[in-house]
Every structure is written in structure tokens, then in C-alpha cells.
């Protein structure tokens, strides 16, 4: 078994015992990348050279006895974290040559904690999608079935981790972009509370919804990663100045007496029956651990997606206006005057899904429609947030399926945007309410595709989420499988 198959905490133990070096781990990781990347296509940029340099430095620190929580651990970064000197393309032609002059806060923090960066992972263009099919750099495949999508938008990170091409990875989640691919690829994905992890240096999709989070092989690793990246950042106005607890300290605690809310609106006709059954088994496991499950209602659930598909495109239409061929990125050579340059650059530089969302968002904000769309959606968002506030008065966490279906076939939904959008049906509510949520593997379909269960918690209740998910993970009785590649 290669070191690349281990978790962060397993590797940490062996590093601490001086059994292995970071270079050993990185060597195994790149051996794996060389073996499977051609088929999976998780990465847009592989950072082989600098990874070995990072590993050398880490080994130096290890020799000196300076062990940080991530020292020497190979991590893959979604390609929308700005990385100084390393291309950051966001899956888009319009940024295909953009080399940021600065590191985002999360990248800086991971570096400070000793991480080794393996590469930048593929994603739906500007994180708009649920399948990683809209990237200008090509489609990423699900390691469990190469004919299927890995989910999106952080599909590259989920696939790289599921394929053991890294030890952990980062993603961003605007409407489910961490949790949905985590579920479809059989790994843990965590979206923290809005404002818990700095967005500085994260290329924005929808500013009021975006949040960075980790992909890990188990819940303990998620706690380790969150410890590393969480915290107040003075570079972000929406960063929350709250102390960060040691998330690892929540692990292994008893969940006896916990109340788990089961919202009826998330268990509906149309969910894949195998998913429905797997999540219900998860509820039983948790009850077996002494927690109590209670039926709850989140009455505005059915409006989440509609709200999401107004607010996210509206913010995106504005966030993506900076891509105009003036300061960085792609510029069309066909524009003879300024207006033509703008239109050709943006039309050639953006893919169909991004243009579609820019169009929806521009329309929703345009004169005469603002109240009917953007304002209305923002009001319903308030009601959705209130639903959760009410719910968390009666329960500690909420448990739902992460996705309505397992991974679908490549190309299956590309011509039907609305069907694609339905992939976010259980995940977008967390972003609208700003609450943390986490997807943890809860079984496999008969066809061998992973299934995810989603835990949702109140604002800044990541500790509780990790505690429950960790207890579930240890007692779920689900064998740990690896995709056959």
C-alpha cells in the first residue's frame, strides 16, 4: 500500500515516529498521479517540482523537530485559490494564463502549517456547475466509474482525493460544490459557516455564498484541515472575529442525548431509493449511538433552489465583470475598438454555462426587474434562514441526503441546465443560511457508486458536526473501499 492511500493523521503519526519522510509521501503521490491522472484528469496544473522542494523543506523542519499540523502533507488546491507565481485559471479560458502576484489567505495558512502543494485541481468554470464538465481544460472523471462525472464544481479535488492522488484537498462551496462531489466520490467534504474561513484570494463566484472547505479521507482529517484554515482575516470584511476552537477536541466525544433533526422536505419522491435507504440506515446508526432523531420541518425548502439561482447568478454577473481583457487573462485579438474587444473577449473567454448565468444575473438586476427577482429572492432567503434558526432550537444537527442521485453519466445533463441545477437541491440551503454542513460517505449503490449523508449545523457549530459525523463514521459499519483504477 502506497503512503498516498493514508490519511493525514496516519501519516502524521508515522512522520512523528520518523518512519517516513515527506519526500516518501510525495514520491508515492506522484507515482500515483503518473499512473492514473491520464484517466481521471483531476488536475489543471501539477506542481511536481515545487512539491519536492516543499517536501525537502518539510523534511528539514521534521529533522529539527518543528512539526506543524500539516508538515509534509501533500494537498491539492482547487484552481480558484490564488497562488503566487502559479497559474490560477478557474477552469476558464479567460484566465488560462493568469499568474497571481499573491497568495490567498487559505493558501498562506496551509503553507504556514507546513503543507506541500501537489497541484491545482480541475473545476467547473468559475465553480458554476455540478459535474466538472464545463471546464475549459476538459472533463474530470469519477474514479469509481470513469464514464461518470465526479460532481462539481470541485470535481477535480474530490476525484484526486478519491483516486489517492493527494492526501487532502481544498474546495469551494457556493451551492454544494464541496459536499456534492464529496458524496459522489466517496470522501468527506465540509463547508464551514460563512465567514469562518477567509475568502481572500478565492476567485469569487457568488460572494455572499462562497466558502472554502476541505476534502478529506475521513472526519478526523476534516477537523485537522479546518483547524489549519479557519480563523478571522482582516483582509475580508465578512470574516467573523471569533475564536477558533480545536476541532479535533470534539472527536470521540459521546453523542448520547444529541437530537438529530430529520426534515421531511428532504425525503421526497424522486430521490434515488438506494440513497434514501442508505441515509435512513445512517439515521438508525446514529440512534443506536444514543442520539434521538426527531422529524422537523424546513417549510421554505422548496424555494431554496429558485432563490439560489437568482442570487448566485446576480452576484456572479457583477463579480465576473472584471474579466474584460484589460488587466489580465485572455484578450481576443479580433476587437478593433473597445466595445468589440470587450464582447469578443468575454464571449470567447467564457463557456456556455458561465454566459448563461451572467445573462440570468444581469437580467435579474436590470432596471425594472430588480424587485421581482433579486429583492424577492433576498427576502425569501431571510425566511430560509429563519427556518433553520427555528429548527436548531429543537435539534443539534440536521441529517439529510447530500444529493438526490449518485454520480450521473458524463454528458447526461449538459443540454438541460435546469436538470443540472437540481443536483444542488439539498445543498444550496446551507449556503443561503450561511450554516456549516458536511457530507460523509454512508454507503454504496449496488452499482458500486458512493453515497453521501449530509449533516447541517447552526452557525459556527462545526465542532458538533464533526463530533456527530465522526461518531457515525466509526460505527457505520461501512467497509472502506477504494475505486479500482
Amino acid at each position, binding site marked *: 500500500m502506497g503512503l498516498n492511500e493514508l490519511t493525514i493523521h496516519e501519516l502524521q503519526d508515522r512522520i512523528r515516529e520518523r518512519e517516513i519522510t515527506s519526500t516518501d509521501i510525495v514520491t508515492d503521490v506522484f507515482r500515483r498521479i503518473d499512473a492514473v491522472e491520464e484517466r481521471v484528469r483531476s488536475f489543471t496544473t501539477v506542481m511536481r517540482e515545487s512539491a519536492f522542494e516543499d517536501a525537502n523543506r518539510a523534511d528539514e523542519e521534521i529533522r529539527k523537530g518543528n512539526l506543524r499540523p500539516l508538515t509534509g502533507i501533500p494537498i491539492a488546491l482547487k484552481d480558484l485559490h490564488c497562488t503566487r507565481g502559479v497559474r490560477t485559471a478557474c477552469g476558464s479560458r479567460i484566465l488560462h494564463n*493568469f499568474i497571481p*502576484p499573491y497568495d490567498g489567505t487559505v493558501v498562506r495558512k496551509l503553507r504556514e502549517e507546513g503543507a506541500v502543494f501537489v497541484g491545482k485541481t480541475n473545476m467547473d468554470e468559475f465553480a458554476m456547475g455540478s459535474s466538472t464538465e464545463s471546464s475549459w481544460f476538459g472533463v474530470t472523471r469519477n474514479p469509481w466509474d470513469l464514464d461518470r462525472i465526479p460532481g462539481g464544481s470541485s470535481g477535480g479535488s474530490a476525484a484526486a482525493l478519491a483516486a489517492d492522488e493527494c492526501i487532502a484537498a481544498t474546495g469551494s462551496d457556493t451551492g454544494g460544490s464541496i459536499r456534492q462531489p464529496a458524496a459522489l466520490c466517496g470522501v468527506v467534504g465540509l463547508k464551514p459557516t460563512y465567514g469562518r474561513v477567509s475568502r481572500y484570494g478565492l476567485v469569487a463566484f457568488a460572494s*455572499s*455564498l462562497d466558502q472554502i472547505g476541505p476534502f478529506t479521507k475521513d472526519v478526523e482529517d476534516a477537523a485537522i484541515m479546518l483547524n489549519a484554515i479557519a480563523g478571522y482575516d482582516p483582509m475580508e*470584511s*465578512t*470574516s467573523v472575529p471569533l475564536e477558533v476552537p480545536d476541532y479535533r477536541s470534539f472527536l470521540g466525544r459521546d453523542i448520547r442525548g444529541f437530537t438529530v433533526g430529520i426534515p421531511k*422536505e428532504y425525503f*421526497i*419522491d*424522486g430521490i*434515488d431509493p*438506494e440513497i434514501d435507504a442508505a441515509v435512513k440506515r445512517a439515521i438508525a446508526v446514529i440512534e443506536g449511538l444514543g442520539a434521538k432523531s426527531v422529524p422537523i420541518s424546513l417549510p421554505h425548502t422548496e*424555494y431554496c*433552489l*429558485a432563490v439560489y*439561482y*437568482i442570487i448566485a447568478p446576480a452576484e456572479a*454577473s457583477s463579480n465576473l465583470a472584471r474579466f474584460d*481583457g*484589460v*488587466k*489580465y*487573462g*485572455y*484578450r481576443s485579438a479580433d476587437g*478593433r*475598438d*473597445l*466595445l468589440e474587444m*470587450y*464582447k*469578443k473577449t*468575454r464571449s470567447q473567454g*467564457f463557456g456556455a454555462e458561465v*454566459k*448563461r448565468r*451572467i*445573462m*440570468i444575473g*444581469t*437580467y435579474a438586476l*436590470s432596471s425594472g426587474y430588480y424587485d421581482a427577482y433579486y429583492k*424577492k*429572492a433576498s*427576502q*425569501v432567503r*431571510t*425566511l430560509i*434562514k429563519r427556518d433553520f434558526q427555528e429548527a436548531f432550537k429543537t435539534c443539534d444537527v440536521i441529517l439529510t441526503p447530500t444529493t438526490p*442521485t449518485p454520480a450521473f453519466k458524463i454528458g*447526461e445533463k449538459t443540454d*438541460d441546465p*435546469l*436538470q443540472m441545477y437540481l443536483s444542488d*437541491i439539498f445543498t444550496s440551503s446551507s*449556503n443561503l*443560511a*450561511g450554516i456549516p454542513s458536511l457530507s460523509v460517505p454512508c454507503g454504496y*449503490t449496488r452499482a458500486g457508486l458512493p453515497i453521501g449523508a449530509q449533516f447541517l449545523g447552526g452557525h459556527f457549530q462545526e465542532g458538533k458536526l464533526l463530533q456527530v459525523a465522526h461518531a457515525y463514521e466509526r460505527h457505520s459499519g461501512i467497509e472502506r473501499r477504494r475505486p479500482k483504477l
Partner: protein
Amino acid sequence: MGLQGTKRPVSSASIRKPRALSHFGRYPLKITKDQVEYVAHLARLEFSEQEKERFTTQLNDILLYVEKLNEVDTTGVEPETHAIALQNAFRDDIVRESLPHGLSLANAPSESGNCFRVPKILE
């Protein structure tokens, strides 16, 4: 078409396809081709005739879907712009280093004399 992996069509309110998808044409268009052109201009995008047709249809589907928000009574409800309510996030008025020389323009598609160069505005 329902959600993948199910035989039954999706029938729940929450993941129902908008009515107009299956009865397209019986409902008034939410957005016309003219509006698509206007919005495209605002967003500095251009489309072929074929793309315009397709976009008009797709945008209509999406706009009809989000119509369902009209079912919600939002009288007196404050619109939410932020997931977490914060206020007064300030920085002190302290000058910090600008980008080192050359890095500001390092990504410029076209530059001249330390300025970003763009095609002229045609009047």
C-alpha cells in the same frame, strides 16, 4: 426526464420541472429575444442567432422555474444580503506596500509605458 436513477418522474413540489417545460408555448415568454440582446449588451457578451434562440429558451425555462417565489408572501420581510450579520469592518488608514514594480502589469494582455493598453473607444 426525471432525476437519474429513478423510474418515477420527479413529482415532489421541490424538484418538479417547471410546468412550462412540458407545455412550452402555452405560457407567455418571460424574456424575449430582444431582451436577451439588451441583456447581452449590458453584460458585454455577443451571441450567434442560434445561440440567441437557445439562450432565450433556456432563460425562459429558468425564469419560469424561479417564478415559484411568487407563491411566498414576503410582505414586511427584510431582504437578506449577508449570511452572517456583521457591521463596521474597518481598516486603519495606513499605507502599505503596493505591488513590486512590474507585477501590476505582469499579466497585462497589452501594455505600454507602464500603462495597460486598450483599443480606443469608437465614438
